């Protein structure tokens, strides 16, 4: 047989196999109105609703219990409220808004599971169960009343037709715990509707259960700190535009003009990101993951400026500089003035102590490290673990370890296991 045939067999088999790669998508089947306020869901109603609910109809899809929590985003003086429901099943969550088209307490929106592409529409009405009868909720609960959310959910864009009933069981776990969302809220590879490390993702983070976020900092060619994870411009993160190579080889103007993230957003600057956190969200923690080699003074200046603004506006917001490598630690040590510059060390306990980092963040793959965690906490340090996504380990870390928070790509799952923990 001639070499041509060997090449043909090799080439065709490779092309055949490559051609069969499947593309995954999970488009959101619901368009939010974005209207400000919360309609009939007044503050007392929202507060009363929050809690752990038992699932009766819908157990197979969403598990035996779920956690309900209201969040909001700000637009100037206006607030827009959203109801999140966190499920322990396949990192599932609901994002819902109040339905103003009806004269009752109704929410509508979508559900999604982060581990796969399952999604669908949902519509739920808030009622009370009194003497075994479901009644319209008037805003106050009498003794013996139980809150019930009942309605329908569907699959994909199909109209909801499956029953879903959630019955109030108990309050959310009140223990302080940091639910930190990776890459400003979630990974692009989890097929969210907005891109990782974007302003839209920062605005979405709370609805995914996050109380804080981690963002990745790189510098442009002309020294502007931006949010971007990878070393290179690539189609994993950006739309096709012909540009490639290290992100540091492009000026901010070039990136701002020519590059769009996969869901159409611009690559934000660090200042834009912190401005969004400060003015549009209720997030209380920002972890600046320094993914560059070089001086830290520019990032420190921005961190300090926003820290001052947070204090001035009485916002509970900590902005800390992450030190993932010894080079980053050296850059921190080289700062002329370290006052009011909180840092988070991913390095070992000895280096963390030598840096006087107030936060220690070891990898989750080292296990709970109970002794070291307790020792660091006894010295007044906060201890987070990163980046933990495996559902069963999330459950165990929350139940059996002593960390003060978890950084995860699956903040809805961390939220679920934290809020239902007793």
């Amino acid at each position, binding site marked *: 047989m001639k070499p041509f045939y060997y090449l043909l067999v090799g*080439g065709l088999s490779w092309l055949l196999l490559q*051609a069969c790669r*499947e593309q995954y998508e999970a488009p959101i089947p619901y368009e939010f109105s974005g209207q400000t306020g919360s309609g009939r869901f007044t503050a007392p109603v929202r507060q009363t609703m929050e809690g752990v609910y038992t699932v009766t109809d819908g157990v197979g899809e969403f598990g035996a219990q779920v956690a309900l929590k209201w969040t909001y985003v700000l637009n100037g003086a206006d607030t827009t409220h959203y109801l999140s429901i966190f499920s322990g099943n396949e990192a599932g969550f609901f994002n819902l808004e109040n339905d103003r088209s009806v004269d009752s307490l109704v929410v509508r929106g979508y559900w999604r599971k982060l581990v796969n*592409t399952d999604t669908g529409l949902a519509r739920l009405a808030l009622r009370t169960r009194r003497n075994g009868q479901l009644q319209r909720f008037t805003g106050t609960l009498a003794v013996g009343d139980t809150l019930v959310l009942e309605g329908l959910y569907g699959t994909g864009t199909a109209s909801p037709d499956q029953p879903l009933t959630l019955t109030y069981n108990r309050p959310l776990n009140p223990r302080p715990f940091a639910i930190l969302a990776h890459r400003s809220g979630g990974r692009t590879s989890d097929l969210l509707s907005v891109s990782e490390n974007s302003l839209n993702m920062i605005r979405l983070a709370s609805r995914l259960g996050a109380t804080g976020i981690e963002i990745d900092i790189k510098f442009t060619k002309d020294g502007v700190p931006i949010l971007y994870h990878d070393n290179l411009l690539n189609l994993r993160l950006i739309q096709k535009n012909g540009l490639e190579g290290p992100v540091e080889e492009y000026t901010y103007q070039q990136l701002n003009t020519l590059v769009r993230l996969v869901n159409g957003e611009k690559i934000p600057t660090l200042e834009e990101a912190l401005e969004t956190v400060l003015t549009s969200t209720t997030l209380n923690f920002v972890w600046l993951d320094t993914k560059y080699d070089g001086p830290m003074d520019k990032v420190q200046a921005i961190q300090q400026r926003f820290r001052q603004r947070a204090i001035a506006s009485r916002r509970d917001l900590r902005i800390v500089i992450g030190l993932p490598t010894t080079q980053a630690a050296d850059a921190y040590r080289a700062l002329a003035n370290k006052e009011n510059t909180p840092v988070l060390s991913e390095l070992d306990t000895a280096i963390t102590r030598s840096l006087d980092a107030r936060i220690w963040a070891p*990898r989750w793959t*080292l296990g709970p490290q109970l002794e070291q965690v307790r020792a660091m906490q006894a010295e007044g340090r906060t201890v987070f673990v990163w980046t933990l996504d495996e559902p069963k380990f999330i459950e165990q870390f929350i139940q059996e370890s002593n960390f003060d928070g978890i950084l995860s790509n699956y903040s809805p799952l961390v939220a679920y296991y934290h809020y239902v923990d007793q």
Partner: protein
Amino acid sequence: MTLHLRSGGSALLLGWLVFCGSVALAQRAARPYEPPADYQPGIYFPQAPRPGEWRKSIGLIFTSTPPEITEEIRLLVPAIDVNLQHGLSKNWYLSTRLQTQLVQSNLALGVRYATPVTDKLYAGLGIDGVGWFGALAIKDVFNSQAGGLEAIPHATLGYRLTRDLQLTFRTEAIMDLYYRSTVGPLAVEYDQRRLNGVAFTFALEQPFYKQQHVTLGLRAAYSNFNWQFWSLYDTFERDFFYPQLFFGFIL
């Protein structure tokens, strides 16, 4: 379904074509006429070794990291690949395969049935029981172990293109049976039986140099989980493409 040829894929394709070509040239240049033989050395070709006969091969298998999990990092991860087969009867034989990177290994034990369909076309069926284990203890990075069991039933067609060049196509179903992982004192376990994915293999087996024979091939696995990447703890419930290139010297 869309056609993808990323830069990493193009490099792999180029390397693959060069390798196929070099083997083809070696075969064409070196071989005088030999009469056809009933038994050609082969690890993938569906033909049982003679009863009591052992077949052995040693080589390397390279697995490409899926970009969905490793993102911008693309690697061809090598593993030592050892095969051992033993003929039980005219049609039945046992097979053993060890793939190892020292810190993680995969051992498959199987039984196979093979029979000629025509002079050139052969067919085979088999099932492998697979156990894999990995342990990583790296200061400040890992204190983790994982292991699992899989079953891989497979069907194989082999065709003698020439008197000593054998082309094999194998299709496999990868069934997960058990998984356990520990980090420090914490452990998770999954013992659900489920179809993890499928794999398709093309292999060429032929003389390479003097009395030596060589296997070279490509295996494409579409699976939810791949044992070599257990330490990445991917949580996606999606099938990803794990292309593998392998070659082995039949001893």
